[in-house]
């Protein structure tokens, strides 16, 4: 949200149209005009892992069935062209003067797929069940702010109020949660409680019993093989394109479960699946070749954007048993020198086949609004690294050519990453080679993922590792800093888990994090974010490396993709509701 005022103006505009009770999907979200659109047809997709449940309250994996059925539904949603929150199932909202309460007016006339109206009760019941500890919902944590609950209150059937324990930059993100039908879940929850909810909507449930408020319904599911979704006509009653046609245009989505990406590629090349996001250079070049040789009528956008994930090397500040290493890892100069030995361009060329993006701060490069362009970058520069290490007293080399200090202690550390992640292993080997050039001995081992996580998240004054290469995903557009990562007591404050801030700049970051999280003005929040990135760059709590890029591809039988400007790993290649089959 850039400016509350701007949003309120657009709200007013939508309220004006609200007599029709429809949400009109803006033309600028697709390249196709309503006049060229054809109705009907099936889009064929593939996913890597099988589905585990139809139950929205116990589902945990990304791309789960409930989220497919629901699509964009929620009181608010984001406009992909601006990133702003816009009213969706709500027709408007008002914010209380103390900014702790948001009251939403719910759009009238929306119905569940079984014909029952969608009202405030549905949100209340969904929130109740998500926040019941015994249910074990994955969304549980999102309804709490610093351990204090966010509460919902029904004002009347079409008015609902969210009450926050403190002002929150992510307030709308919380309010945008997907509602589920109270008339289905409510009676079970009242009678049997959490245990009753957990038994509902398993994969064996008959598709006709699954009720959805979103664009899709389940048509059929074959375990391990295929999920077929069909259009929910009730959704089309309040979702229209600019010409007034009900959405989605498609009749069906057919999602095949294809575990092996080579098999996915083969199916895409054979024209049996319509969309794909190839991740390796080999796959990309095969698709390009097939297109060039006229064997496949498809489009691929290479390097559309970086992916929303980070890849970094973290040094352990808590090594009481080895004071030499501990003081080394806590030294700015050492960490800066280590940033200078990371050859990010080589990582991109060798590990990502030239299709990647270097990283210098905790904000993913794809979040362009948030990236501070002026942040100092300690790029690949071996001379600079050698100079910094010399300033730390490492001037002489021993017989094997590694740096030693005046007491004869060798500059050496252990580096590990999770075994089986070929890309991280390659990155580690590049670092070992470059470190050797300046005289630093790096002993690399690949270890089991769970062991690695155990070491990384251990706490106390003495932790069992030197340096680890790992990555994180999941950072919001509202406030891209991790609630578990930045605060010194955070569970993912990986470099220092002594339970307190050791460096004054950590304290500063901790304070700025809280300030930003409770700042409602987007511009001011970005300023705080910029400041945090500057401090991060000086402190270098972790050394960011590089990440792969996003390369969406689709068969040209599909129309209605995003305009180029908004094709990215954040917004994807298209709105499925606006997608249609050309031929």
């Amino acid at each position: 949200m850039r400016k509350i005022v701007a949003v309120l103006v657009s709200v007013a505009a939508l309220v004006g149209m609200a007599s029709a009770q429809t949400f009109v999907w803006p033309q600028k979200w697709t390249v196709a005009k309503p006049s060229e659109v054809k109705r009907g047809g099936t889009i064929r997709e593939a996913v890597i892992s099988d589905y585990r449940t139809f139950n929205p309250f116990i589902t945990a994996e990304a791309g789960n069935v409930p989220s497919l059925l629901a699509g964009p539904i929620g009181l608010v949603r984001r406009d992909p062209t601006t990133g702003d929150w816009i009213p969706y199932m709500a027709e408007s909202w008002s914010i209380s003067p103390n900014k702790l309460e948001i009251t939403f007016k719910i759009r009238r006339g929306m119905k569940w797929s079984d014909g029952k109206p969608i009202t405030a009760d549905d949100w209340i019941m969904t929130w109740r069940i998500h926040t019941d500890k015994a249910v074990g919902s994955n969304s549980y944590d999102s309804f709490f702010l610093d351990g204090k609950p966010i509460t919902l209150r029904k004002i009347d059937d079409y008015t609902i109020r969210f009450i926050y324990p403190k002002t929150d930059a992510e307030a709308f993100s919380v309010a945008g949660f997907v509602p589920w039908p109270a008339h289905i879940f409510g009676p079970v929850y009242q009678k049997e409680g959490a245990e009753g909810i957990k038994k509902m909507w398993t994969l064996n449930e008959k598709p006709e019993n699954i009720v959805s408020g979103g664009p899709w319904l389940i048509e059929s599911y074959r375990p391990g093989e295929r999920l077929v979704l069909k259009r929910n006509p009730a959704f089309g009653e309040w979702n229209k394109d600019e010409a007034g046609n009900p959405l989605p245009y498609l009749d069906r989505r057919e999602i095949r479960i294809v575990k092996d990406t080579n098999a996915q590629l083969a199916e895409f090349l054979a024209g049996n699946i319509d969309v794909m996001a190839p991740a390796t250079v080999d796959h990309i070049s095969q698709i390009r070749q097939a297109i060039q040789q006229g064997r496949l009528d498809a489009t691929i956008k290479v390097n559309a954007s970086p992916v929303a994930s980070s890849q970094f090397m973290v040094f352990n500040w808590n090594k009481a048993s080895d004071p030499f290493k501990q003081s080394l890892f806590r030294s700015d100069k050492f960490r800066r020198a280590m940033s200078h030995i990371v050859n990010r361009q080589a990582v991109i060329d060798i590990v990502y086949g030239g299709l990647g993006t270097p990283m210098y701060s905790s904000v993913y490069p794809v979040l362009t609004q948030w990236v501070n362009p002026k942040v100092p970058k300690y790029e690949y520069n071996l001379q600079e690294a050698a100079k910094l290490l010399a300033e730390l007293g490492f001037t002489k080399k021993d017989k094997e050519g590694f740096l030693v200090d005046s007491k004869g202690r060798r500059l050496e550390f252990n580096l590990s990453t999770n075994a089986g992640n070929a890309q991280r292993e390659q990155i580690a080997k590049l670092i070992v080679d470059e470190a050797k050039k300046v005289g630093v001995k790096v002993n690399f081992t690949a270890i089991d993922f769970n062991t690695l996580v155990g070491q990384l998240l251990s706490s106390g004054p003495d932790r069992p590792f030197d340096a680890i290469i790992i990555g994180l995903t999941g950072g919001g557009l509202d406030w891209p800093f991790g609630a578990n990562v930045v605060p010194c007591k955070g569970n993912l404050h990986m470099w220092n888990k002594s339970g307190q801030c050791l460096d004054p700049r950590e304290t500063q970051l901790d304070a700025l994090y809280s300030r930003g999280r409770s700042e409602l003005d987007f511009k001011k929040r970005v300023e705080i974010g910029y400041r945090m990135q500057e401090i991060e760059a000086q402190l270098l709590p972790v050394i960011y490396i590089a990440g792969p890029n996003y390369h969406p591809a689709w068969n040209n039988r599909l129309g209605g993709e995003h305009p180029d400007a908004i094709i990215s790993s954040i917004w994807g290649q298209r709105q499925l509701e606006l997608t249609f089959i050309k031929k």
Partner: protein
Amino acid sequence: MTAYILRRILYLVPTFFGATFLAFLIIQLAPGDYLTQLELDPKVTPETIARLRSQFGLDRPIHEQYLLWMHNLLHLNLGYSFAYQAPVLDIVWPRVVNSMVIVVPSTLFLFLVAIPVGIYGALRQYSLGDRVISFLAYIGLAIPNFFLALIFMYLILQVYFRTGVMVFPVSGMTSSGFEQFDPWKKILDIAWHAVIPIIVVTTSDIAGFSRVMRGQMLEVLSQDYIRTARAKGLAERVVVYKHALRNAVIPFVANIGGILPGLISGAGLVEVVMAWPGITPLLLDSLQQQDLYMVAGFLTIGLVLLMVGNLLSDLLLTWVDPRIRYE
């Protein structure tokens, strides 16, 4: 005989407890648990993870978890999958059935093809035919299943690019729109999808099996009693099939016990590569996620079938080999 069978069943009890406990222990010895994956998610608090861990019972000592699981097993409940939040059997069973579509025909083919091929190789040792078959068998042994599957997929695609004809499907078990087909078309559709996986699985098995068969036959054919049989003027057919073959198959009958669990344990990596919705991809996922009861439950089914299979094959041996008596 009845006494023998009863005694054998009695022996199975400690074996069962020993094997299940070992399986359970080994899964638990792996570092971390099902919830470790969640720990790197910046949105999940440590309190939530601790709460889930106690809900799943993962915070209790291993022997307690094992006893609880055993208690459920004795009530014919294999356990509850963490990932699916559903009973293990409900999830595993449809996948096992899918796998059987490949495994049952390929097991049949294996016997139908490998035994005659092995016999032929032994009777015409070092003939041109034997050499050709040996050569192919070594190739079959050398190429891993999943790789052979990839080669087939590549060939299918190349044929498709050149002719526009899809000879066999690239992957999967059913075509799109399968639900609307009539029953006959459904069967034909699955059969069409199953051809390549069955060929892939059978090829490498035939290779090994026929080599062993050939070796067994050669050994038996050089025995004194075969020379005696020939000397007393028996027809060659009788010598080979009645005297030699019956002795040569004894080791295979002893191994029949392994076929039973083999029927449910899936066709292996072919299923992953060719997107066949069998048990292998499911089991691999469960192993990766450390979905404890899914893995342990499935191992238990296999264990029971192996024990029953071994008993059966021991009983079959008395029928094939009159020298064996259980008293």
